[in-house]
């Protein structure tokens, strides 16, 4: 059985030759360590104003190639480690000067989010969403109007990017194409969560308008991912945090339920499967995921109390389960015995009858390639289906 058959069999809740293993957004630091690459010292370059200008111009003129290059590295690293499949993602951003920011430069994405740039201890550039640019309805309207031409461009880029990855790597690993952050995140993040919470009560029409807009763009992105030939697509929204959902599940249903149903319908119309990523404690949403038509879920974060066995008990084989290996200790500092024991437990808890893909619960720069390798080897060793 090859990697593709293995994943697709598991996703159909049948037993492949062995439990498949999937990689996530491998952090740049992790993929560099796997490939033996050294990061360019972007931090000190950015502290020189002339170089900063050059870097900004380079990023803006070569965004797609630069982005593709770093994900090509991720796939190379994932193949080298022995993953059967790996998450692939595209984001469309512009570098903008911002004297208030740490490095003098930030990224703005097409949806109105600001991503702060940082440099990790090895010199890798990192970016993370920190705030929104659309804190009022007027700002949101103006932003969308100004960026309108870019949404078509985004969809074109998504299709090209995923196709390029699938063409170049599809014979060695199964790319699981991510349509970008979901409608919930694209709705609240450009306004900030406190503003979003206020608008839900004070300006429900505005919130609905944003959700409609974001759903429309999201469906087009998802379709573009599928046009690239990707067979399994990944959707995602962090709907939960450490103790439970961000919002009452019924409020999520009322605001986002239709949107999620349309997402599943589109994927199924194209004869694909949809895996959904959410961090946090998601027990209260599992039944919703089934109702909305998702085929599987990815993450099940142990630090938020998610236990694979319990999830399987609650949803049976209505959902494919992907994930659950801890990244707060196990895949950072755990011993080989501990990693093996965790893999065996995950397999015991969730892999019977197929429907389970082993993976880490998330990624960050301290997730250690050696531990990932142990995880994969343990899956090869203990994950064989004998029947």
């Amino acid at each position, binding site marked *: 059985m090859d990697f593709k058959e293995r994943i697709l069999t598991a996703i159909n809740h049948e037993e492949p030759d062995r439990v498949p293993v999937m990689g996530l957004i491998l952090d740049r630091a992790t993929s560099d360590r796997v490939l033996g690459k050294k990061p360019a010292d972007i931090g000190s370059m950015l502290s020189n104003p002339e170089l900063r200008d050059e870097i900004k111009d380079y990023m803006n003129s070569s965004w797609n190639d630069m982005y593709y290059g770093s994900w090509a590295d991720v796939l190379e690293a994932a193949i080298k480690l022995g993953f059967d499949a790996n998450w692939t993602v595209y984001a469309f951003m512009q570098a903008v000067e911002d004297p208030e920011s740490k490095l003098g430069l930030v990224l703005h994405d097409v949806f109105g989010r600001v991503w702060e740039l940082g440099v990790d201890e090895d010199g890798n550039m990192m970016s993370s969403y920190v705030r929104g640019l659309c804190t009022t309805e007027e700002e949101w309207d103006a932003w969308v109007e100004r960026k309108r031409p870019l949404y078509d461009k985004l969809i074109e880029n998504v299709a090209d990017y995923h196709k390029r990855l699938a063409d170049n790597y599809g014979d060695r690993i199964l790319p699981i194409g991510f349509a970008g952050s979901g409608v919930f995140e694209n709705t609240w993040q450009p306004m900030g969560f406190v503003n979003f919470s*206020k608008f839900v009560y004070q300006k429900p029409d505005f919130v609905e308008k944003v959700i409609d807009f974001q759903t429309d763009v999201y469906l087009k992105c998802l379709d573009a991912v599928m046009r690239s030939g990707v067979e399994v697509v990944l959707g995602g929204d962090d709907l939960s*945090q*450490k103790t439970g959902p961000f*919002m009452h599940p019924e409020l999520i249903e009322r605001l986002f339920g239709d949107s999620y149903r349309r997402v599943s319908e589109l994927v199924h119309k194209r004869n694909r499967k949809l895996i959904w990523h959410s961090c946090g404690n998601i027990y209260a949403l599992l039944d919703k995921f089934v109702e909305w038509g998702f085929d599987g879920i990815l993450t099940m974060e142990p630090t938020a109390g998610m236990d694979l066995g319990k999830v399987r008990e609650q949803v049976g084989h209505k959902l494919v389960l992907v994930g659950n290996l801890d990244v707060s200790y196990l895949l950072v500092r755990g011993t080989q015995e501990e990693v093996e024991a965790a893999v065996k437990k995950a397999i015991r808890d969730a892999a019977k009858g197929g429907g389970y893909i082993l993976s880490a619960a998330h990624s*960050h720069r301290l997730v250690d390639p050696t531990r990932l390798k142990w995880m994969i080897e343990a899956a090869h060793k203990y994950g064989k289906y004998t029947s």
Partner: protein
Amino acid sequence: MSGEILEQLKARLLDLDMDGAVELAELVAGGDVRIADAVNAISEGLEVVGQRFQRGEWFLTELVYAGEIARETMDLLSPLMETASSGPLGTVVVGTVAGDLHDLGKDIFINYARSAGFKLIDLGVDVPAEGFVSAVKEHHPLALGMSCLLTTTDSEIGKVIEGLKRQNVRDKVKVIIGGAALTEQFAENAGADAFAPDAVTGTDIIRGWGAS
């Protein structure tokens, strides 16, 4: 009459009715209900908000919005308070540790604790250890709160506590921590005084420190 207004004020907060609550607060401000009683009614309402959140009946959106309603009504009432005795319950300095940019948990805690009557000093995200230590020396807070969601940054907590010790202020401030990567056990090992799984519990713990 005044009892009825106070009950209604609390009820509007618990119905998440901003306009209704603000209208009643204005009525209180211009009328003969004792301001201190109205402030108490809001605090009682917030306690119920906290209980609903901890019981899993309410979620972050409700918690945030109830905090906003409490803040708006308090903004109308606090300037009219007569005595210093009804000033803030104490000062709390809060920030997210160096290298960590997650701010939602910190902000929600700040909103909630502020609406519960504490004075909050927000240091922002990505705060270096020295930043926490010098803020403690400057503001002499009752508690120092640190938010940390990442394994890559959890060693910062220990660094801050060491810094507080070096500057001889560790015994002058209580340290409380929260966030995804942390646990009660972690707090104990790092030498913090408490771990809070959520904003409501955190506020309760600090209230307890203030009272003792």
